[in-house]
């Protein structure tokens, strides 16, 4: 009887150690799932772009409702862009075919903003909260393309 108790005790101790070590590791990972357009649906230039640019295009194309509410601060309001979404997508026809804009391929702020949007969504922030963050972070460098 005593022998069995010790085995149980050792098992429980090991389980706790495993739990104690793995819980903090899990908590630092973002498990929220983001809707992303498959990379093979992207233009060739995007497929050969840096990973941060690829994921920004994939996210933007799949989340117009979010991206149209987030501004860009790269100065692209001067070329008719009306949100961060415009930096990636220049048009969608009535059959949902997307015309991509290559502007973000060479844009630093555009992609940084989209990466912030993705991260903050994973952290559970709402779109208005994300917009507030983007305005506060990037208005030090440029002008918003949203009123």
């Amino acid at each position, binding site marked *: 009887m005593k022998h069995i108790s010790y085995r149980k005790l050792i098992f429980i101790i090991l389980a706790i*150690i495993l739990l104690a070590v793995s819980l903090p590791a899990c908590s630092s990972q973002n498990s929220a799932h983001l809707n992303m357009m498959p990379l093979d649906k992207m233009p060739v230039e995007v497929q050969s*772009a*840096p*990973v941060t640019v690829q994921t920004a295009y994939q996210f933007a194309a799949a989340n117009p409702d979010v991206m149209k509410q987030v501004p860009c601060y790269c100065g692209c309001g001067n*070329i008719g862009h009306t949100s961060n979404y415009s930096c990636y997508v220049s048009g969608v026809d009535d059959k949902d075919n997307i015309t991509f804009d290559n502007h973000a*391929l060479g844009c630093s702020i555009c992609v940084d903003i989209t990466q912030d949007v993705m991260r903050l969504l994973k952290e559970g922030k709402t779109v208005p909260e994300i917009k507030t963050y983007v305005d506060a972070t990037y208005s*030090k460098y440029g*002008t918003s393309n949203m009123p």
Partner: protein
Amino acid sequence: MKMRRSIFLTLACFALIGLIAAWVFSRQPITIHARIAEDGGFMPDNIKVRAGESLRLRLISDDVDHTFAIGQNSMEPVLLKPGEPVYLTLTFAKPGTYIFYTTMPSSLNYWRMRGTIEVTGDGEVQVAQLPLYVKLGLELDEEHGEGEEHFELARQPSVSSGEAFADQIPAMYLARDYYVAHSPMETFEELRVASALQSLSNEQLWNVVAYIWLQNSTSTALLEGRRLYQVNCAACHGENSAGDGQFADEMKAIAEQNQDKHGIQPPTDFTDAEHLLEEKPAVLQGLILRGGMGTGMPMWGTIFTDEQTWDLVAYLYSFQFEYQGVNQ
């Protein structure tokens, strides 16, 4: 009684082991892998830490040589050689968002290798200030020189020659507010028609403009500007600023293929007098802060301090003006 004592001892044992395990885990450094931007860049690219707490990092390159630097921080870039981990312990005194990045031009998109360290904690929340070019109502993306008469300088304007006329320069031209909002060309044209210096030759007047420009910097600032340029800008703009850095040809080829004025462009050639002498300091600072609008020029506002952006602006003009001790 014996049973209760046994349960108590067991629970105490568990608590102790849990605490030890948590402590051991908290002492483990966070590993950041570095790969060229096309293969992922820095991973992970977002880290959180509380102000005042130690952040232990294990940095390792998975492919080629990289560096690890932190913006707005005096730490020298750390070299990461493939397969050789480097350990760093950092402490951030103030809450805020700090950018880590590479200074090593490992690929065309090396400037995309960036990540953030979010430092949380109690502290004064900084109210965002608009950049100077926005306050002044200046445009960063205007076309230059179209329809205007082309000009070339016979020789590089000399500060030491311009100094001979220093006591004839109206005070307004030496004011900081004037400097940031006017290009050297505008200053030359104003001096030509509206000052005691209007009788000078063009060459003499350009020497005066060079003198005015140097009054808005210091030798320390110019040397810091040169250091920043060499570390962060030369890979694209070239060591001698002719727009001929190691990635210039690739950028030119992309620009020719795209035919898009708002896409990737070849790096600016600062040896082009017509271009640089028509740039206002506040516009150059804005371009450094914000980056190009889709041109492939990264934003540096999150990396350089405000003072560093002005040091770099002052240094850029040394590609047109003869500054003793900087380009002599």
